[in-house]
């Protein structure tokens, strides 16, 4: 190795131990001094303009960067491995970051580990799986996108001619189950006979597999497709080319499918701005923030031209129901697709019942997959 390679890595190797030891001592004065000019680090798992997940966080990053005295540093394509710890280290020690936004679910363990190592740095994670006992300088926040999927489902249920809709999931995680259930329950709320085929691709981002899956679902007769992958762009474009309807996810994809786009489930990560503002001002912040339409943490995309006015009205009425808290996503009687009774007649799960939603590892009745 030549001398010219003394970059971040060598610097880290040599200074890491020292800084870690000094962090506890230096934390308080450092904190006060850093307040004038806070550097915030955003770490993305893919490219930030992907028409999808990463783009929704990039939108938040731009809002954070607009706060006075805040500088944003970003790194894209950081895998969910020990790599993210190196990126966090270099953001903190070389760029002086005081807040780290870890915008991928699989960063969780690394974020917790680094939070113990750097107690004066604020970490945010988008899984909202923070619980009592986890480091206090970690925030989990996340919107209930299942509510937005419910609205997509209403549009899908009204527009589908075959009575079959398709859901593409990336990984079998609780929020994918919830989103799918929201989509199916929404569709069944307007047409109880609706069924849904589910395919889990196993990857956040694998365009060939997503295109193949979309084609397979359409071949099975599904005529509304929604893809819960990092970038639904491929799926939306493939479905548009095949002449079926699609719903978006993460950000606004309406431009990609002028004929078949119905609406889409979007995030509103702007709450991240509140955390940075509270941190800069030295105020307290919540460790866990969850919310749906009521808390303005999710949104739906503009309707596509294909959606008639009465369907739009129906969708918007349901949205108002979530805002007023009169509409509940999970209510009895409810069965899963294996015939197990989940909720008895009359049982209702509050929309904010996070522990219940974290435990969802089943699909509702009418779902194949």
């Amino acid at each position, binding site marked *: 190795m030549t001398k010219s390679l003394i970059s971040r890595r060598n610097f880290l190797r040599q200074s890491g131990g020292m800084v870690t030891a000094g962090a506890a001592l230096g934390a308080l004065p450092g904190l006060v001094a850093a307040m004038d000019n806070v550097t915030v680090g955003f770490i993305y798992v893919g490219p930030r303009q992907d028409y999808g997940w990463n783009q929704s966080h990039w939108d938040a990053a731009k809002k954070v960067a607009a706060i006075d005295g805040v500088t944003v540093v970003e790194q894209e394509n950081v895998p969910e491995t020990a790599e993210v710890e190196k990126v966090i280290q270099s953001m903190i020690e070389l760029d002086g970051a005081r807040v780290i936004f870890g915008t991928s679910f699989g960063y969780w363990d690394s974020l917790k580990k680094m939070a113990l190592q750097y107690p004066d740095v604020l970490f945010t994670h988008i899984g909202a799986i923070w619980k009592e006992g986890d480091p206090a300088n970690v925030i989990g926040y996340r919107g209930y996108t299942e509510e937005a999927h419910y609205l997509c489902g209403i549009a899908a249920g009204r527009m589908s001619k075959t009575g079959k809709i398709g859901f593409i999931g990336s990984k079998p995680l609780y929020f994918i189950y919830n989103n799918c259930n929201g989509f199916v329950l929404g569709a069944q709320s307007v047409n109880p006979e609706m069924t849904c085929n*589910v395919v889990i691709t196993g990857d956040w981002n694998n365009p060939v597999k997503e295109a193949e899956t979309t084609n397979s679902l359409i071949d099975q007769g599904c005529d509304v497709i929604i893809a819960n992958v990092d970038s639904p762009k491929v799926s939306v474009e*493939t479905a548009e080319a095949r002449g079926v309807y699609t719903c978006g996810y993460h950000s606004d994809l309406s431009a990609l499918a002028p004929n078949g786009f119905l609406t889409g489930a979007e995030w509103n990560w702007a709450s991240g701005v509140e955390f940075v503002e509270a941190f800069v001002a030295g105020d307290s912040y919540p460790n866990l923030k969850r919310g749906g339409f009521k808390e303005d943490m999710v949104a739906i995309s503009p309707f596509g031209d294909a959606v008639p006015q009465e369907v739009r009205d129906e969708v918007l009425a349901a949205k108002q129901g979530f805002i007023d808290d009169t509409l509940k996503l999970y209510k009895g009687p409810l069965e899963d697709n294996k015939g197990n009774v989940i909720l008895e007649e009359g049982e209702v799960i509050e929309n904010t019942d996070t522990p219940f939603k974290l435990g969802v590892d089943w699909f509702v009745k009418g779902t194949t997959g």
Partner: protein
Amino acid sequence: MEGTDISWWSVLIAVIGGAIRVSTPYLFVSLGETITEKSGRVNLGLEGVLVMGAMSGYATAVLTGEPWLGVLVAGCAGALLSLVHALVCNLPRVNDIAVGIALFIFGTGLAFFLGKPFINPSAPRLPDIDLGWWSASPQVQSALKINMLFVIGFVLALGLAWALKTTRWGLVLRTVGDSEEAAQALGYNIARVRTLGTVAGGFLSGVGGSYLSLYYPGTWNEGLSSGQGLMAVALVIFARWDPIRCFYASLLFGGATALGPALQTVGITANYYLYGAAPYFLTLALLIYSSSPKRALEGAPGEVSINR
């Protein structure tokens, strides 16, 4: 479940359709690598070349609105990148495997860097040829929507097999690849033949990349290739440097990729990670099979460094 036999039928259709849709990049890269290896060199950088081709083709199509121009530019970008490999390997005592790995990383990195502005815009796609008009079933119609590049790839495989066997330049290429001494004795310029072989291979791989970005799945982002370029190199060994076998092997790999999603849509969800890994598992299994100590690698060019 009702209609089970229809579902199995549709799995078959989906696998056949998937084989046609997914196989083209494998086909082009493996044909390109066949030419390169027949000249006595291994270019492991074709994954980088493929990604670079995908990016440059997509970028050209976005900027000009002409997808076919994108295919041409993708080929030229691939040829240019492979020219670097060829020229470096022409230097004495340079290991082509090591250069190939460097080119792999360089090509993908360069494509990611230059491709940033093109992740968001949509490019026009290459047109289909509709061969399913005779069928009333939309599944069959969709499975038989064939891209021109697939047809070109098929014709190219036939042409290449013929040319390698019967034409003069095919013979020169094989001589250089099989025995440097013999080629030297016959007075051929070995470096030039290998440079041309590598550049031609790079051109085809670049075209293969443009299929990914301009037709199927028809987008550009940094996760576009899931190792197609690397698997195609392995596929060449399995196909024993035979262009026709490359065609069959590519179809097999394409079908393996389509299997997982097709099974899941009909409700067979157990072990989907295993189905998802099918193409990679197939690569491994085939390499193990074809590297049996009891059989020599028939058809392997004598000068290719894996055989020396």
